[in-house]
């Protein structure tokens, strides 16, 4: 049977690639500290020795559009090209190509449907920075096959937070029931408080540092009850108009399990938004 080698939840900051590769006068003052945190975070995946990565993210109106919008979608294809013209333009992200694992994708689709999630699928999916950012930070060689899973945190009506948690729990069960002896890391990215295109954007910190502090505590301690008691589709408007991306963190809390304390917790207060990084080892910390 497959083993969940690591569960990882992270923000996906599209400026990391440019900040970390900039030199001289172009290199921002926070770049070195950011790179140090990312390298420590990367080591938490490396030492889990994964064979395959399940990657949870959210399309930012790239391939998925309002004329045909899935709530949850699994990519099942031999390859995934990645990053889009407007991400190259705004963030300087490189074009990438990642291998896919169709067998695990097929297992997740078949058994996810049977478990009560009407998962959409795509056999030709160009993935965006919600998935390539964690590849860049956590596995820059991009040498492992992936199964991308997209969630709709972007185009209302959205599924409610509890549904994201439940999908996370189900993904964990689906990976653990895959009858193939592989080590699978489940990685998902979202946001803490975030404002895009509104009055609170691009401030000195994230738009709601108090929400961010509580969010990091919920995730680090696996406090799903506390998180679900406070977070609703309506409440997520308050910390910032793009904060519904926090539901992908809640999905990852579902993967990690209620009460599961993260084995690695780190954060970095940047302008515009706070970065946060979490790793759990459900089967024990690797040597």
């Amino acid at each position: 049977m497959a083993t969940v080698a690591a569960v990882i939840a992270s923000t996906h900051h599209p400026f990391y690639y440019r900040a970390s590769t900039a030199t001289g006068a172009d290199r921002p003052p926070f770049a070195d500290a950011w790179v140090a945190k990312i390298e420590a975070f990367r080591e938490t995946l490396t030492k889990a020795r994964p064979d395959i990565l399940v990657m949870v993210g959210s399309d930012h109106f790239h391939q998925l559009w309002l004329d045909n919008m899935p709530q949850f979608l699994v990519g099942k294809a031999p390859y995934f090209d990645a990053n889009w013209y407007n991400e190259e333009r705004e963030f300087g992200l490189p074009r990438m190509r990642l291998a896919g694992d169709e067998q695990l994708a097929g297992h997740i689709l078949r058994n996810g449907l049977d478990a009560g999630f009407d998962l959409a699928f795509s056999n030709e999916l160009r993935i965006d920075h919600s998935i390539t950012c964690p590849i860049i930070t956590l596995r820059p060689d991009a040498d492992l096959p992936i199964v991308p899973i997209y969630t709709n945190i972007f185009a209302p009506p959205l599924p409610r937070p509890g549904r994201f948690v439940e999908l996370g729990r189900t993904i964990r069960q689906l990976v653990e029931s895959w009858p193939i002896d592989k080590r699978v890391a489940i990685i998902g990215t979202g946001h803490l408080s975030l404002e895009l295109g509104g009055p609170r954007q691009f401030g000195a910190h994230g738009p709601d540092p108090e929400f961010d502090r509580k969010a990091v505590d919920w995730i680090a301690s696996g406090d799903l009850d506390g998180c679900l008691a406070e977070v609703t589709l309506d409440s997520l408007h308050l910390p910032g108009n793009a904060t519904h991306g926090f539901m992908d963190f809640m999905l990852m809390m579902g993967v990690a399990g209620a009460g599961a304390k993260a084995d690695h917790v780190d954060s970095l207060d940047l302008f515009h938004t706070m970065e946060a990084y979490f790793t759990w080892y459900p089967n024990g910390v690797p040597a």
Partner: protein
Amino acid sequence: MSKYLLNKFLYTVDRDPDLVERYREDAAGTVDWWERELANQVLNCAVAEKSTWLAFTDEERTALREHDHVKLFELGAHPFLTLTLFIAMFERDHGPLEYQKAYGRALQHHALPYPDIAT
């Protein structure tokens, strides 16, 4: 109200480098051409199989023709789409983050709840 069509304009222009430049240089002409030629084009379908019913309201058309991102916010256009396209058009005329901060300041009079973006 046709928030969907506003978003469709922002989405289709943002993903096309030539259209980004065209909209920057000639907003009114680009909006008129787009509404005439592309508003009813079902994306991912053959050109002949068009919709027959999509049109901007006068208020929406004017907001797009005037590059009025504050009005687009008020009309419920998706703020991510508006921001991404407007950064592509106008960040180049400003210092680092200057445009993004000014864009936010222009919206300061908006308190919560923001206009509904559901389509």
